[in-house]
């Protein structure tokens, strides 16, 4: 166990280092934030003055070195647009993003589980195709479209829910549903595939032969075995959804990290992008580690390998 955790730690450090370096390189390749900060009529000397003040006139290697030393101290600098500490801005948005991601995953599971089970237990029939078809439907439209359709239906036509914003649970429904449409499909098929694989196995045949009721067979035995791939996907999706909810956050004015990050990218707000990417990467990796740990709990036969 200790070896496993140490190896994971090392792996994490390398990955985060690579991600941060990549972000730094990528950002500096794309342009100069000073251009975005000053109004169009700013003179050459104003631009130079601001560049100097922000340390952007140094050679790239020097900036990179400074960047690394700062990050190791946990200092991600000050956002160029907001003039506030970059990490603070990201942390402020994190709860909203987490709420959206967990709700979306929860909703996705709630729909995917029954769909997948129905599809697996009635394999080959019209019901199977219908269930899978429904799940896939969520994946067949881009998120902005799903979001706008749901908004049109739920808020404008049926007038049941607010159109956008961040407030009580009612504001959460439409964005969460929208964000859930993608992972729902992946999960439904995983549930179906996982159950199919186990439903056919000797293990289950024995249980049936023993005369156990169908429901017990299905729920108790197969679900637990199909749990592993589902947990993997949930863990993977959580990290992806945090940053990938950008479009959803834009449509529904949800104050999350994704939206913060994309406007930071548009404005070349280097410190803010770096802070946001760091946080998202950490959450993603943490999720992965938790998933790996859960394998051991779900299936005692699995030995955690470094």
């Amino acid at each position, binding site marked *: 166990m200790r070896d496993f955790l140490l190896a994971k730690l090392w*792996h994490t450090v*390398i*990955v*985060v280092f*690579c*991600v941060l370096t*990549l*972000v730094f390189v*990528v*950002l500096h*390749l*794309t*342009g100069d934030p000073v251009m975005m900060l000053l109004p169009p009529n700013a003179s050459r000397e104003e631009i130079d003055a601001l560049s100097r003040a922000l340390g952007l006139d140094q050679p790239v290697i020097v900036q990179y070195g400074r960047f690394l030393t700062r990050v190791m101290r946990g200092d991600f600098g000050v956002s160029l647009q907001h003039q506030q500490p970059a990490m603070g801005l990201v942390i402020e948005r994190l709860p909203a993003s987490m709420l959206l991601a967990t709700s979306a995953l929860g909703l996705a599971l709630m729909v995917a589980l029954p769909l997948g089970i129905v599809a697996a237990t009635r394999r080959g029939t019209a019901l199977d*195709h219908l269930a*899978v*078809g429904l799940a*896939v*439907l969520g*994946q*067949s*439209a*881009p*998120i*902005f*479209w799903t979001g*706008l359709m749901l908004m*049109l239906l739920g808020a404008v036509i049926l007038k049941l829910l607010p159109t956008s914003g961040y407030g009580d649970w009612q504001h959460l429904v439409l964005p969460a549903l929208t964000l859930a449409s993608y992972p729902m499909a992946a999960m439904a098929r995983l549930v179906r595939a996982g159950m199919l694989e186990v439903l056919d196995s000797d293990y289950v045949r024995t249980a049936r032969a023993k005369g156990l009721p169908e429901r017990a067979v299905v729920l108790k035995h197969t679900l637990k075995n199909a749990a592993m791939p589902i947990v993997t996907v949930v863990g*993977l999706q959580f*990290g*992806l959804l945090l*940053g*990938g909810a*950008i*479009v959803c956050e834009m449509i529904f004015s949800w104050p999350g990290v994704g939206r913060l*990050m*994309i406007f930071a*990218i*548009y404005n070349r707000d280097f410190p803010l*992008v770096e802070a*946001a*990417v760091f946080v*998202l*990467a950490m959450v*993603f*990796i943490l999720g*992965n580690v938790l998933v790996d740990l859960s394998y051991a709990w779900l299936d005692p036969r699995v030995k955690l390998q470094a």
Partner: protein
Amino acid sequence: MRRLRVPSLLLLAAAPVAAAVVCAVLAPQLAPYNPTTGDLAARLEPPAWMAAGSARHLFGTDQLGRDILSRIIFGARVSLLVGVVSAFLGGTVGLALGMLGGYFRGRADSVIAKLIDVQLAFPFLLFAITVIAVLGPSLPNLLVILALSGWVTYARVVRGQTLRLRETEFIQAARGLGCPAWWILLRHVLPNVVSYALVIMTTEIGRLIVLESTLSFLGLGVPPPTPSWGMALADGKEYLINGWWLATFPGVAIMLIVLCMNVLGDGARDLLEPRLRGRG
């Protein structure tokens, strides 16, 4: 020789895909108008069967007066190209890296695993914006971006399968006999994992066509005036109420193709499964 009964569902799913391919290939012959020109005075005309519509434009016109039916037909080119080529590129990369990681284990696998995690942890949009900013918005750049968005899926599955295959008797035998690694990979591993990659590719094509639309929404898609379903859908989102036909027809086209590709993929996997199980 077992008789493979091809279910009617698969045939049903193949039809729209075939139709799309026909549209893509024969677009200049099939489309009634030039998809890139339009008359501003005729903008936002509804489809022919509605009161304000006319037979001139079956599916109506868009915000610049261009014929929507023509844009759908020509759009099949870009959408299918984007989907297939990017899926293929991504598949090749993922297949190769997955095989290498799964077969050689150790250092190579560790590096590839880190590559996978870095890719997943790195915000895709930042990467897309950078490529567009540095290299300019063009179709080839878009293909590269999309290809890189999906290779991880193939890599993971192929790696898993390669790990399994590695322990089988015939590969152990081949290694014992002193066969070089590249020969084993090409002759024994590749034929067995390629079918997994192909199945993944069918769903990937669907996902990439949809992703192209999302990128268009963010202004990172195919440069105008090239028509694409994804771009048409993104443009049409401003006209949900007074111009629903702008987005509905490309949206239906995308949905249909994605659904069909998924069915085909599932069907292909079901067909391949017994064969694979036997060997695995």
